[in-house]
């Protein structure tokens, strides 16, 4: 359990949020051109990093808005929170 600083509502309990998986996976621009391997890559393959991970979250029991988070998955420490469309504030 940890606290998440929603960029719209402020600090709330993690149980109010829904994790949305890895962030910055870009939907293929021309889906009809994609090979099966590229589809598998887009749909299923994930970095699943132990360490600093960029991910999407939704404040599902609050403002219901999506946002991005940088989190260390080895100890659940949140490094940064930023809105959709913004550049990640840390590398």
């Amino acid at each position, binding site marked *: *359990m940890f606290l998440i600083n929603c960029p719209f509502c402020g600090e709330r309990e*993690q*149980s109010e949020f*829904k*994790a949305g*998986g890895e962030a910055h996976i870009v939907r293929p621009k021309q889906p009809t051109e994609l090979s*099966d*391997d590229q*589809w*598998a*890559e887009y*749909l*299923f*393959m*994930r*970095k*699943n*990093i*132990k360490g600093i*991970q960029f*991910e999407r*979250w939704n404040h599902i029991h609050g403002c219901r808005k999506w946002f991005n988070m940088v*989190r260390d*998955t*080895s*100890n*659940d420490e949140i490094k940064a929170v930023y809105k959709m469309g913004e550049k990640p504030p840390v590398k």
Partner: protein
Amino acid sequence: MKNKYSIFSLIKNAFSYHENWEKAWKDPEPKKEYDVVIIGGGGHGLATAYYLAKKHNMKNIAVVEKGWIGGGNTGRNTTIIRSNYLWDASAGLYDHALKIWEGLSQELNYNVMFSQRGVMNLAHNLQDVRDLKRRTHANRLNGIDAVYLNTEEVKKFCPIINTSPDIRYPVLGGTLQKRAGTARHDAVAWGYARGADEMGVDIIQNCEVKGIKRNGDAVEGIETTKGFIKTNKIGVVAAGHSSVIANMAGLRLPLESKPLQALVSEPVKPIIDTVVMSNAVHAYVSQSDKGELVIGAGTDDYVSYSQKGSHDIVEGTLNAILELYPIFSRMRMLRQWGGIVDICPDASPIISKTSIKGLYFNCGWGTGGFKATPGSGDLFAHTIANDEPHKLNAAFNLNRFVSGDLVDEHGAAAVAH
């Protein structure tokens, strides 16, 4: 040859105050080169090494483990064993394991305390009822024992369940697999370790893998905290850390690693003599031989390697347990812990070759790998030894995420995933 464990060896050792038992396995330093190296000394990894030595006549095998054997998910699960899966491929895989479980204590000369006390899955809504009936029929067609029970029969089989129609999610029925049950999880790792050690497998503990050396499309060895080990075949059985190892080799996997929690109560006298699972409300419970209630909670929905989970997950599970078993309302919980489980998009495992020659993965068991331990080891050993999958694990290849031929057990099995 190791001394056989028996009533006679027990009596003999009693005369020396049990101080002269020989070590169940050695603690060797790694050699420079092995024919096969298994990464991960949990139940699945040790079973793989055991069957490589026993059935495929391989001699020069090592198991490397970053901590101590059986200290990961093998020692953290809720020890439930069953094979009542919906799809043919899963039924084949898990029933293969269940059949090995039935003779495992004798085969290993190690009491894994396999107890076929039955596993009951409850239905709480109309869709559950339909799904479970469908699964019962599918199981029977695959030669797996399964019966459907109505509410009265559920109550008769496990009298402490609250079957009142007035609860929030009333019990509308359930399925029962009588051959299913539990086993002692530590004993499984120790038994396989002892058996593998006897056949010359080096079990190297406190040896963390730091890198995988590749030569073009093939593997050449592993970098570890105990130095470089040369090998042409690597079997990765690293559970929650599978993606970490895959990243070292430059391989992409469709896994997400998440915390899964379990908890046990204070020990009490025998009160529940079976395993009851309820997917809809996510509560499952059994009782260990020590008398503790063993309760499995759910996974968190975020990726984490912290071996901790969120409190609200435990709270949700205990709410459901209290509704279903009012008799437990004054039980105190003794311990709670988390393990990191690697979950595939289709909730089925991967036991497969990869695009890299000599690199094999056995992963993606998600929340339900313990039950498959012997079968998983047997089939993975076959895959490594022959460089070809066995027919029982052919469907569980890595390429299914490209071909689309998924084994979708997520919703289908109506079980806790």
